[in-house]
């Protein structure tokens, strides 16, 4: 070894009660390199990152920083050692300003007082590195999810770092914003920094990373290999541990003459939609594609009564419907909504699997005096645990203890248990690994084959092209057009992008900061 690695981890092991999260993991980061860290959910990526940043301490193994052994006991020490991190979870204080959030780890001070001028200038410097034109005084809660993510990255740049760890930084931002992020990553590489990049998106990894380490079940099964020497399929095989057949899009037959079960006719809402029209037939998967902030989730919420329809008509099974609450949507119209924020809105982390699934059916299970049979709800929930192949130790288990993919299945299961006929699924596979993703696709197809009308919201174009039968494109709170899906990625992406741009051209740009190429 001529030059020592910027950061090296040797033989790291970490156990949590009953679980070996990491088992003899090695990671070697060279300076001036973007290193991809890959693995399925639960493979140990986040645990590894948390050890490198002092959140957890390893049971075994050592860390070397520029060739010198170090011990990192707390996030503060990691920062002082020059290891910056952007965690997967949001770690911002919403009531504070952008500037305060960026410099929070080390507030510039004048004596005992905060040096506000320095706060602003430091924040501007970090934001400028991201080419992000944001006023440091802006309160965080005025930002979009993607902007918050970028501010988090800016915060990672605040302190002098030689190693920057990015844990799934692109999971919730648009490709435009991701490009901006990658320009920064390239710049950091040129400055001789080591960047760790955790992502489930193979395209990004292959486009921007130099080396790769793959974790599987807590072991490093591929260590610091040059990415150029490997193909995508090889990496996936190593991650999953076996060869996965290429994803087959099943032949789906949709009865196009069937009457739509869900129709929007020139709908405007109190959330800002204008003249939205679309229709979904039974057994059909209608994709709703758009950039982050296009108003897709808001449209779903308006249909569920969480926003008001101010103009136009919502028709369910041909009849005009006014929906005021989720309960009404479910009980009167059999509409269900699988949310994109699984942990915040989709599941009850501290409650059992049984209760999480049965929550929508208690009203039907209830008999005299509101009695709900424990056995009844358990049998019902058990049925969906089996049907969706939810991996649990037992139905008493708290949902908070399940992996992300299984939580997502629980979040879906409650709507199936409620026998919905129209299902709105919002970003079903965000943060879910390759293998679980495929089983989810199969599941969604199966549900559609069983006659459910599915409105699928996704920001992942590849997913859209794979899953949907037709794709409605949304931009700035209106539907700019609908295309039949040919399942040909290149052709589809072109026509979809074209629709987004027509929409943009037709509408004068409002104040919201957004880049358009």
């Amino acid at each position: 070894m001529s030059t020592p690695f910027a950061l090296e981890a040797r033989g790291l092991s970490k156990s949590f009660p009953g679980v070996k999260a990491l088992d003899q993991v090695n990671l070697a980061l060279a300076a001036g390199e973007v290193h991809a860290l890959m693995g399925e959910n639960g493979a140990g990526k986040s645990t590894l990152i948390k050890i490198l940043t002092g959140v957890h301490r390893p049971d075994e193994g050592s860390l070397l920083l520029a060739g010198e052994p170090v011990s990192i006991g707390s996030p503060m020490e990691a920062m002082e050692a020059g290891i910056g991190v952007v965690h997967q979870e949001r770690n911002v204080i919403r009531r504070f300003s952008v500037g305060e959030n960026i410099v929070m780890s080390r507030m510039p001070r004048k004596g005992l007082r905060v040096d506000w001028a320095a706060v602003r200038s430091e924040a501007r410097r970090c934001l400028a590195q991201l080419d992000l034109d944001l006023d440091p005084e802006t309160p965080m809660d005025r930002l979009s999810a993607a902007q918050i993510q970028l501010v988090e990255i800016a915060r990672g740049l605040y302190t002098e770092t030689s190693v920057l760890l990015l844990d799934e930084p692109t999971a919730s931002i648009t490709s435009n914003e991701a490009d901006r992020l990658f320009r920064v990553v390239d710049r950091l590489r040129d400055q001789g920094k080591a960047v760790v990049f955790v992502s489930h998106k193979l395209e990004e990894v292959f486009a921007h990373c130099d080396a790769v380490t793959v974790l599987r079940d807590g072991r490093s099964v591929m260590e610091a290999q040059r990415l150029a020497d490997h193909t995508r399929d090889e990496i996936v095989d190593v991650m999953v541990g076996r060869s996965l057949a290429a994803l087959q899009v099943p032949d789906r037959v949709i009865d196009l003459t069937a009457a739509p079960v869900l129709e929007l006719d020139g709908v405007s809402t109190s959330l800002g939609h204008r003249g939205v029209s679309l229709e979904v037939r039974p057994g059909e998967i209608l994709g709703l594609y758009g950039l982050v902030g296009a108003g897709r989730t808001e449209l779903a919420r308006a249909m569920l009564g969480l926003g008001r329809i101010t103009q136009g008509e919502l028709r369910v099974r041909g009849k005009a419907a006014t929906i005021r609450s989720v309960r009404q949507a479910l009980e009167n119209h059999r509409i269900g909504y699988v949310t994109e924020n699984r942990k915040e809105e989709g599941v009850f982390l501290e409650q059992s699997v049984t209760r999480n699934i049965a929550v929508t059916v208690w009203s039907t299970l209830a008999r005299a005096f509101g009695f709900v049979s424990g056995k009844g709800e358990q049998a019902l929930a058990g049925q969906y645990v089996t049907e969706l192949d939810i991996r649990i130790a037992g139905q008493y288990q708290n949902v908070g203890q399940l992996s992300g993919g299984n939580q997502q299945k629980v979040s879906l299961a409650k709507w199936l248990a409620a026998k919905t006929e129209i299902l709105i699924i919002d970003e079903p596979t965000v943060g879910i690994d390759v293998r679980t993703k495929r089983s989810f696709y199969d599941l969604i197809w199966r549900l559609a084959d069983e006659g459910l009308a599915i409105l699928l919201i996704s920001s992942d174009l590849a997913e859209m092209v794979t899953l949907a039968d037709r794709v409605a494109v949304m931009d700035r709170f209106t539907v700019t057009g609908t295309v039949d899906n040919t399942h040909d990625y290149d052709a589809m992406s072109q026509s979809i992008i074209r629709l987004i741009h027509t929409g943009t051209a037709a509408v004068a740009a409002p104040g919201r900061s957004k880049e358009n190429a």
Partner: protein
Amino acid sequence: MTAQNRDDAPRTATRRPGAVRRFLATPRFFLIVLIIALVVVIGALKPSFFNGPFVIAPLLTSISIFTVVGLSQLVVMSVGHMNLAIGPMAAFGAMFAGMSFQLFGLPLWAGVVVGLLAGAAVGALSGWIIARTGVNSFIVTLAMSFALIGLVPTVYSWLTTGSAFTVKPDGLDVIGRASFATLCLGNVCGTNAIPIIVVPTIVTMAILGYLFTRTRIGRELLMTGSNVQAAELSGIPTSRRIILVHTLSGVLAALAGFLLAASTGSFTPGIGGEFMLQSFVGPILGGTLLAGGYVSITGTLLGITLTLLIRKGLDLFGVGIETLNILLGVILLIALSADRFRLIRTRRTRAAAAVAPPDDTGGDPHPTGPGADKKEEVSA
């Protein structure tokens, strides 16, 4: 709830780890041990403790009343709210009961109904304001508390000369002051150590136990407490549930106020003055989570029993009321830290389990620490 384990689906057939072991890890078990130890110690040092009519019966009377006070707080805690106005609401409800006896000459049952309805009304008002405005329950009930503290004595001074309603309808003393010694089957009479007043408390506990473990609404309350957004998006009418728990809290506060009045023999504006601290101590010691989503009704009884037992013990040793209050404060602090500690432990187990490989459902179930187990089910 052993029935929970029966399960036909093969994948989930793994049995839940030992029910006994789980019980041993609950705060309830710890409380039982402490209570037994205290009874033994106090009894050994002061044999007069075992005097049925003069020590045990009054102690059980207070336990009965304060358990209802604790339950009044527990129902709002189930959705993660709190009610700082329990004392004044108790005074308000008792005032209406006393008024119906004194001014309208209503019989016992009718006066009780009027009192409980008055409690329901103020509780519903709190709940409605909270659900409607989204203001934190802490603030709304604090304001409600001030309003009632002002209102109740004013009404008493309008309507009475001695600031108390003292007319007793038939049967009031039976509920408030009699013991089972007055109930005889032939010539076999009950013990004079157990007051009749335990009956309404036991009935209340049974009803709430049924509500939280067996009914749709109880389940929906706990889900609302766990995650109000997810509850709303799962079709639970969370606003209505919030109004419901505050109404119920008002009813239980009024019941507690009535029981206290029945035991002392007069309806005064001072009723409920000691309720607030106790209302939190009982449920929290018993394992109910301040954050919502898990309640323990027996735990509340045990928590109340422990604090009142300590109080009685110190009383027997001649320790003054100030010391008692210091001790109560310390107990509450410990109970609150325990609450926080359990939350952290749950998070840890959760974090640990989250990194587990997705498909290790094989033989051994995930390690579920006691903290993790505790929240998922209600104990009656």
